[in-house]
């Protein structure tokens, strides 16, 4: 699956770069993540236990940052796998400083999704990925806002969304696009699959936001 997109961060490029290279912030902006372990300056690993409905299993992911040109661009390689399947992907991210003191980010990459995720969750991958990306950006925006405010002496608390809030929001987004699909025969089937896909979204957003 090819992915590409853009996002404008409301802050200077250096701040954005610093933020996305901070695993603490990233992990907190990606609900459901257990702490992201930094193995080296460029390698990270994270684990997640999933047990929802018929789907259960531990999902572990590795993330490598390469071709870094701070604060302009980097390449991310993600390799996650677990009982529900696997996600592998490579993404290239670029940051451009805008005159308005904002940062324009573009990303493009290719993701392979396999196993149960692909074979039974296919129809929702797109919408879930989009939803995860949207939400991920929203929380990053808030984190950035808090970060900038704190630097200027104000006390603004950044509260990342909880896993439940996040999943609920994804389910809502997915359901919206679902009603437009004519062949829907059995809505109950959506729920476990949606949750499954939240998982992909998690990996995707990890990939996309860093």
């Amino acid at each position, binding site marked *: 699956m090819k992915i590409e997109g853009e996002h404008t961060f409301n802050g200077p490029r250096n701040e954005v770069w610093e933020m996305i290279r901070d695993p603490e912030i990233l992990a907190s902006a990606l609900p459901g993540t257990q702490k992201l372990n930094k193995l080296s300056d460029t390698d990270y690993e994270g684990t997640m236990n999933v047990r929802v409905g018929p789907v259960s299993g531990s999902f572990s992911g590795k993330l490598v940052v390469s071709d870094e040109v701070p604060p302009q661009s980097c390449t991310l390689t993600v390799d996650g796998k677990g009982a529900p399947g696997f996600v592998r992907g490579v993404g290239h991210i670029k940051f451009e400083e805008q005159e308005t003191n904002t940062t324009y980010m573009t990303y493009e990459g290719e993701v392979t999704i396999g196993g149960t995720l692909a074979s039974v969750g296919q129809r929702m991958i797109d919408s879930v990925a989009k939803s995860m990306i949207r939400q991920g950006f929203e929380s990053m925006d808030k984190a950035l806002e808090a970060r900038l405010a704190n630097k200027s002496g104000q006390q603004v608390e950044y509260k990342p969304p909880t896993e439940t809030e996040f999943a609920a929001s994804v389910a809502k987004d997915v359901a919206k696009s679902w009603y437009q699909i004519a062949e829907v*025969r*059995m809505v*109950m*089937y959506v729920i476990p699959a949606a949750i499954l896909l939240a998982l992909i979204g998690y990996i995707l957003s990890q990939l996309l936001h860093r």
Partner: protein
Amino acid sequence: MSGEYKINVKVNGKNYERMVEPRLLLSDFIRHEIGLTGTHVGCEHGVCGTCTVLFDGLPSRSCLIFAVQAHRHEVVTVEGLGSIEQLHPLQKAFQEKHALQCGYCTPGFLMTLVPFVEKHSHPSDEEIREAIGGNLCRCTGYENIVEAVKLASAMMHTSKE
């Protein structure tokens, strides 16, 4: 696992008390715990309709219900419909119209249709196709099933009238 719970389910008029895990599917409970293997499973995700039983009188997919949810409820399976010696009119009509081939999906069709034929005395083809639209059959192409439903409705309602 997360322990076992005692449940009491009435199946075909008989009470069954069993200790089950909360995740046990009703379809597995019916088939493997109490041994009523007439209910079949075709897809395990609620699409094919093969595992349909009557749950408190309504056609329901037993692969989408946990056995614990059936505690103190009433289930009717194909075994509760008619016997070889005395077939239910719907069963009779299915044989008469060659509405089954491998017979695997048939119990699901029958249980889906029981309330339908009770309600409709002269259903149209469209109404019947709509009623069985959630049941998949790979052998018959459905036409003979539609014919069987018409025959069954006629048989059931003439005998009442």
